[in-house]
């Protein structure tokens, strides 16, 4: 599903990732852990096509991301969902408008779009707030909508960068449970987090980064 071969990344000469090689299989739940500045976000960005590696190759579904042209990147992104810590919702739009956005980009019909939006919102328990303006939602609700938007296209891979960073422990548990459910349905989940509670709850493969180096790769959290 995802393969990295000796990937390195530098920002203005400073090392962000060094010689990372790994292989992630379909349906895996991978948790990227490590202190701030360890390279977790950079690794996700590389897989998402938001950054180019300075060295090495990245294969996502047998497609070499390192060689993607600028015009191919959006199509690559449509095959995956991305959830961020700061939600990134359009505040003046309704919940359904926010979730429908990836479907509009793909050019789906209104009927198909409505069906998929409802399905995604049901999956995150937000189908009762279809017409609510995003800015009036609570932080937990906004993150749920963000997850619904990420899964509405039925992506094969779901990337998440500190999705519980702004949430209290109760909401963190709820959001982690959502990710667990999505992963159980067969979606590969790759999440950057340093929240011990999330790591325990998801019980996935743990990749520990430190100063850009992959320092450990272990299966279930113990």
């Amino acid at each position, binding site marked *: 599903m995802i393969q990295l071969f000796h990937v390195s990344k530098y920002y203005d000469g400073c090392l962000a990732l060094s010689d990372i090689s790994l292989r992630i299989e379909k349906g895996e739940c991978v948790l990227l852990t490590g202190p701030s500045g360890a390279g977790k976000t950079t690794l996700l960005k590389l897989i998402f096509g938001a950054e180019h590696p300075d060295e090495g190759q990245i294969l996502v579904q047998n497609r070499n991301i390192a060689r993607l042209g600028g015009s191919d990147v*959006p199509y690559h*992104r449509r095959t995956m969902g991305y959830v961020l810590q700061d939600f*990134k919702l359009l505040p003046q739009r309704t919940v359904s408008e926010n979730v429908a956005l990836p479907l509009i*980009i793909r050019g789906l*019909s*209104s009927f198909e779009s409505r069906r998929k939006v409802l399905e995604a919102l049901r999956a995150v328990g937000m189908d009762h707030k279809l017409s609510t303006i995003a800015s009036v939602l609570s932080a937990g609700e906004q993150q749920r909508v963000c997850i619904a938007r990420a899964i509405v296209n039925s992506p094969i891979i779901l990337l998440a960068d500190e999705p519980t960073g702004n949430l209290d422990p109760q909401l963190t548990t709820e959001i982690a449970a959502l990710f667990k459910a999505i992963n159980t349905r067969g979606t590969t989940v790759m999440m950057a987090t340093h929240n011990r509670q999330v790591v325990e709850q998801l019980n996935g493969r743990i990749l520990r980064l430190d100063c850009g180096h992959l320092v450990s790769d272990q299966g279930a959290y113990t």
Partner: protein
Amino acid sequence: MKRLWYFIHEAYTSLRTHRTSTLIGMVTTAFTLISFGIFLLLYHNVHNLLGQVQHTIQVIVYPNNDIESGKLRDLQQGIKADPAVDSLTFISKQDALTEFKEQFPEEVYLLEGLGESPFPASLVLTMAAKTPTTDIIANLVNRLQHHPDIERVRYNRDWIERLTLIIAYMEFGALVVGSILALASITIIAITVQLAFHTRQQEIEILRLIGATSLFISIPYLIEGAILGAAGGGMALGFLRGGFELLTHKTQGLSVFGGFSSVLEFFPLPFSLLLIAGGILLGCLGTLTTIYGSLRFRL
């Protein structure tokens, strides 16, 4: 369909949100197009007047003195068939003599004792209104001069060349003035759209995050620019029409204009539509300038 609705909705939302800058963009485009339109209106009317004057240009052909009547008929038919020729009038020797007597009655004594009319017969050609450029008339005259049944051809070359030169200068002037004003309009629209871009950075970022292409992101802004341009074009057209009607109404019957106002005419419909299309084009160009200049998008 959903996509199209999305694009239109986005453009409309942006225009509504940034009402002040939208109005400024619209008024500036209108002002630019009004300035250009006044120049164009002037050019259009002068061009029309020159066309009418050119219509009066005459080429006089003198057939050989001993030409047979059959050959003269063939010659007349051949000349009439030329698309550059609007009309042909045959003036016989006798007609020429009569005309001289009418125009110069006090000089008639000069012709006494000469017997038959000393004036040669001639063919007077007027040019078709749309065709008389220097080249076309020169070609026609050249052809006629080499005709075996024609003795000589006379026409006022300087006058025609001067007219052609005036038209060429006006066309060049229209191009220069139009280019400068168009650049000004593009710049203003680019700034208006740029403002919309900056205030919607977060939205653009989100769209990129979920796989929108640069083209998808740009389309609402292109529509916004086109609406700005079209509205500016419409305003300009309305202002020009109103101004034109007022001018013709006020100058009608004033002797100082010597009946000039009666021959003035507004742009024909295709020209008016072209002015609005010009506004749309300016709007789109302004948007593209912003897209490429500010965000370095790849379309």
